[in-house]
């Protein structure tokens, strides 16, 4: 049973600071190790980190880009973390995100045509985003229902759904949903109508940060509230902690499992929908940087806690964003970022190592995520 995993229940500063101490030290240690690796490979760690920080926080534009990167990470990280809270491993964020994006794009560019009227933004945007969430919820709910009612493991099914989603979206973007502009050479949708676009926060050129980022923060708070302040959230967490006890307590475990995966999928779908409506204004079959797997790392780094996920997402977003400047200044391969991220995750998770190095004694309950594959 988790004891101190609910944030906001702090009685005093110490109790509030303590859970942060080890993760902070873990991150610092990982950064130091990363610096050692860069040094060993002949690079200049100080210049590298300077570049990383400059690129992620060093100017308003950099901060804006970091927020842009962090937004889908927050949503996708919440998706995976939410599923973990329910005792489920959602590897399918990638596919759910794709469907969310495709649906939002469809509503964005096609709906005015279908209805033969233009739509005001306050209707069009929620519709587009809502459809994205719905699509993600369905795509996540299917493996959830399969697990609940047939026992089929969600790990396999979500991995399979990822590939199926990939093929379906490829088909759609190369075929029925393809931008008909004769000069278009790419597999992408037409641009969505202006009424479906989420505006940027500032009207400054080069600052792309948009209201989707604010939405992400709000959704994180919403998820916290859902998990800790509602009956549904309690049921989800109970099923996650001990499905047998939940069943004997009268909770409909099958229903909860399905709902958990559906909500998780909706969050991932939201990530895709926001990217389409707030950033790219279309969906393109492009080179994605693997949000699905980054989301797992972010959820774990944030200890499956919504606020932790926000911080982890911003951290990851900053690293990905700042890597460009780091490479620009030092020509160090951006793969080093992956190594540092792995080390961060490692040290955060294996806090025994950190405690050993820094001689800290923290009596915090270990968050257990793996319940094995048991149905």
């Amino acid at each position, binding site marked *: 049973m988790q004891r101190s995993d609910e944030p906001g229940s702090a009685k005093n500063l110490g109790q509030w600071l303590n859970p942060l101490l080890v993760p902070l030290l873990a991150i610092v240690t990982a950064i130091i190790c990363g610096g050692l*690796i860069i040094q060993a*490979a*002949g690079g200049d760690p100080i210049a590298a980190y300077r570049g990383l920080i400059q690129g992620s926080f060093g100017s308003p534009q950099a901060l804006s880009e970091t927020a842009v990167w962090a937004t889908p990470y927050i949503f996708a990280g919440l998706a995976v973390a939410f599923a973990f809270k329910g005792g489920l*491993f959602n*590897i399918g964020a990638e596919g759910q995100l794709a469907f969310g994006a495709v649906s939002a794009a469809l509503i964005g560019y096609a709906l005015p045509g279908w209805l033969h009227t233009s739509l005001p933004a306050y209707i069009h945007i929620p519709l587009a985003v809502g459809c994205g969430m719905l699509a993600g919820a369905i795509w996540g709910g299917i493996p959830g229902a*399969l697990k609940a009612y*047939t*026992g*089929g*493991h969600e*790990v*396999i*099914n979500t*991995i*399979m*759904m990822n*590939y*199926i989603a990939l*093929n*379906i979206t*490829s*088909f759609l973007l*190369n075929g029925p949903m393809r931008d008909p502009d004769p000069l278009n050479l790419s597999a992408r949708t037409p641009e969505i109508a202006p009424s479906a676009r989420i505006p940027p926060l500032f009207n400054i050129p080069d600052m792309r940060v948009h209201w989707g980022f604010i939405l992400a923060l709000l959704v994180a708070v919403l998820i916290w509230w859902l998990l800790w302040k509602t009956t549904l959230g309690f049921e989800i967490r109970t099923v996650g902690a001990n499905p047998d006890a939940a069943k004997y307590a009268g909770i409909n475990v099958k229903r909860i499992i399905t709902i958990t995966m559906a909500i998780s999928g909706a969050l991932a779908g939201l990530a895709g929908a926001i990217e389409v409506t707030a950033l790219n204004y279309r969906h393109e079959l492009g080179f994605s940087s693997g949000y699905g*797997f980054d989301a*797992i*790392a972010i959820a*774990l780094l944030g200890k499956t806690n919504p606020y932790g996920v926000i911080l982890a997402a911003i951290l990851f977003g900053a690293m990905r964003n700042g890597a460009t400047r780091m490479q620009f200044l030092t020509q160090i*391969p951006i*793969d*080093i*970022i*992956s*190594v*540092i*991220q*792995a*080390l961060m*995750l*490692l040290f955060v*998770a*294996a806090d*025994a*190592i950190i405690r050993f190095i820094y001689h800290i004694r923290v009596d915090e309950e*270990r*968050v*257990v*995520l*793996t*319940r*094995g*594959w*048991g*149905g």
Partner: protein
Amino acid sequence: MDWRRFAIILFVIVIMFGTVVLIGVSQNSPLVIITSMIATTIAVATPLTLGALCGLYCERAGVVNIGIEGTMLGAAFFGWLASIYMNTIFHFPAMPSLIVGVIAAILTGGLFALLHAVLSITFKVDQIIGGTVINILAAGITGFLNRQLFFGAGSVFHGQIPNAPGVLPTLRVPFLADIPIIGRIFEQQPIAISAIALVIITQFVIFNTRWGLRTRAVGEHPRAADTVGINVIRMRYLNVIIGGFMAGLGGAYFTLESISSFEANMTNGRGFIALAAMIFGNWTPFGAWSAALVFGAAQALQINLQFFRTLIPPQLAVLQNSYVVGLAPYLLTMLILTGLIGKTIPPAADGKPYEK
């Protein structure tokens, strides 16, 4: 062994093969087509099988390992690196270099597995995290080193990849390989043969030996096993490392048997498919192998339908769409798993760190 599951899988594979034969018969003889598809199936299934065996050893002992992908990638890189060093720097001839490469790959697999074991068993880090760490770490390290060593004038090898000593040779089964056309099936490279052999060996070891019994005990009821005097921690460590060796061999397939070069992230998600194969096979070697064969056959189907694209009759025009065919293996897996076979039963103590 679940014969019903086997029968269904065999049926599915026969359907896939049959479809291609019927379509392509005007261009190539059925025997040629079947042989070629079997060859493709085995080629695709080899790393998947070995990855699934890795997962199997780990999980039968109670340790969840999702780091198979990273382990195979790391093994592929370091095995390849070792073979290059032997061949180019130390000037050994090709075969010994390749063998050293395979050994290096296996050991690398064991090393990554050891890391996972230390994290999961001793530090009781959540096993999902441990596996994720290995995946990210392996991708980062191999990409980083690949760049540092071989790219650009300032790198260790000054921008030139040294000649790799080729790939492992094809071995021939003496009489069977001489049969015209289908003899091709009996010419296989060592790792492909090892994969099949290891499936049989693992089946025997896990279910018919004392070691296997202890392993399963540790994975189902560690406390009871402990009471009877089995060293739970030691059994888990050893099985995870053996699993690592399996994944290491799987990694060697990519750079020492299939082709002789390394590319960043070349495992491309196959480690996760292997994981799925293991679950699909209900944690049994033959089950996992059959799942791997389904994936192999499905990929063969996909390649061959494109190959015979122009011969597909209009009634089956949907098969011309590579995306429709592309999603077939995955859809099939889901259907078979949930529709026909249903609940998979993992080892009871899978994923739970053991507290003495």
